[in-house]
């Protein structure tokens, strides 16, 4: 009791002190390490023509030079505001088919990588299990709050869940192209503003990049019947 209140106190003091430089969320030693790592990645990335290394180097340079880490920021805001993101994609199929696929919420884990399973309880309600590593577990019940066929489906977690989750998907047929624009928005917030370990993990995996990749998977599965992959193909292994 005493310990937790002093922790809360020091957190308040720290928050207050950081107000002056509230964009800096990386310590000085870590900033130098970021710059050193960035230099290594840039040199090795240039030598190997590795885009991932070069992009990583860019991110680390930014982090070291500015003292601002977007990942820390996301985690920090995860503890407070949570995440709220929106992405869209065009799928070359009629809107009725796309709407139907989303309306069956049990389809979602096939392409939403942060979900382990969604099971329908009745026409409106469903049980959701997040994909969290190790023994961490996060699940909740959700209900559909609005559905207009071929236009929109929105849902939210039931009150008193371990998470405040909202989602909506909007559909728009593309004139003359037999295709559908799908716009998805999701938000995850910790109830009462405090994220436990499982929720913090989940929040760090729900990013704009990941949502875009998830929508790309949805499109590939619907259009091509499968998701492209190279996982498991042969590769040379020369010892240098």
């Amino acid at each position: 009791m005493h310990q937790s209140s002093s922790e809360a106190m020091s957190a308040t003091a720290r928050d207050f002190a950081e107000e002056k430089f509230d964009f800096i969320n990386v310590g000085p030693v870590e900033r130098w390490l970021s710059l050193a790592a960035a230099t290594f990645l840039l040199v090795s990335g240039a030598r190997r023509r590795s885009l991932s290394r070069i992009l990583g180097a860019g991110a680390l340079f930014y982090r070291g030079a500015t003292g601002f880490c977007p990942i820390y920021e996301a985690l920090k805001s995860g503890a407070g505001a949570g995440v709220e993101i929106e992405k869209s994609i065009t799928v070359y199929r009629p809107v009725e088919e796309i709407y139907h696929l989303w309306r069956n919420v049990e389809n979602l884990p096939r392409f939403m990588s942060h979900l382990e399973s969604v099971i329908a309880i009745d026409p409106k309600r469903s049980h959701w299990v997040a994909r969290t590593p190790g023994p961490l577990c996060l699940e909740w019940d959700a209900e559909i709050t609005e559905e207009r066929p071929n236009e929109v489906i929105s849902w939210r977690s039931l009150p008193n869940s371990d998470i405040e989750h909202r989602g909506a998907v909007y559909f728009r047929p593309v004139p003359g192209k037999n295709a559908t624009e799908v716009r998805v928005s999701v938000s995850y917030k910790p109830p009462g503003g405090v994220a436990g370990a499982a929720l913090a993990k989940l929040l760090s995996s729900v990013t704009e990049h990941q949502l875009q990749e998830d929508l790309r998977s949805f499109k590939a599965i619907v259009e091509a019947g499968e998701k492209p992959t190279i996982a498991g193909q042969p590769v040379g292994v020369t010892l240098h």
Partner: protein
Amino acid sequence: MRAVCWNGKKDIRVETVTDPRILNPRDAIVETELTAICGSDLHLYNGNIPTMESGDILGHEFLGRVMEVGPEVQNLRPGDRVAVPFPIACGRCFYCSREAYSFCDNSNPNAWMAEKIYGYSPAGLFGYSHMLGGYAGGQAEYVRVPYADVGPVKVPAELSAEQALFLTDIFPTGYQAAENCDLQPGDVVAVWGCGPVGQFAIRSAFLLGADRVIAIDSVPERLEMARRQQGTEIVNEEEVYVPDALRELTGGRGPDACIDAVGMEAHGHGLAGLYDATKQKLMLQTDRPTALRQAINACRKGGTVSIPGVYGGFIDKFPIGAAFGKGLTLKMGQTHVQKYLRPLLERIEAGHIDPSFVVTHRMPLEEAPHAYEIFNNKEDGCIKVVLRP
């Protein structure tokens, strides 16, 4: 199996790797009968394409026998002899349904990488960097072929492997380049680069009705192949200023269409940060953007510049003023090979063309490192190498 692996700039090794297996329902496994080194593989060899990784299996021109098919592949069965197009395409997306297979929306598992550089991602390719899918390539004993129900075309036993192999890339690539010129009776076409793609562009330009074709290069045996085997006029770029020579050869009006079959060695650096640092070094390595600038300069008013040569990043001093002032049409891009497979196979069967004329070197797969070296250095009269596993 044995496979040709990229290990860095000018570091090609034949290595023992695991055999490929079916990973998706529309996959097939093909046993390679014959494969080839493409001029665009030299961009990888010279380290000019980003996102290559050590151990990547090279090669995108291959022909062979189907060994195994996934449950969704209904049109092929083990034993079928097939030529496999180098772009990997799902066959069902917006682009594929318009026969623009090399723009396929669904075949690149690393589409986000290409999007960072190009805005939107083209199709995945065999053996051509992780930005374009990271797919293991065809310079190997066995190859996994995605969307095998869409890409591969069956090759009749009467055709030799050398006659059919180039359906996978360079024949359709030269053909699309000529088709993009929208040729009219009496048209004169100038072709920069008399490597394999240039040779097929020349032949295709004649097939599509060009009256005259002028071939431009600096390598004597390549010019000689164009002149003797194809009946072109030739311009040696080392001896004359090409736009002046073309002006004289066309009665002062300029070619109706110009084809850049050179591409740009100094390419692939899509990331602005790397660009500045490497620009100077790359410009010392190669003079190749000259071909495109010359083509734009030499083309007649209202003409077409068609670019089958590969470009990857940025170029300097692009003569946009000349292109604008003369109202040129520029057409370019990777080849929609699947679109051309059957019509071009029919042309081969009908005897309109025997694509094996470009082959100068035949080697076992094990000699791939040597083959890359002589092809890159244009030694020993090397124009096209085929490799047999």
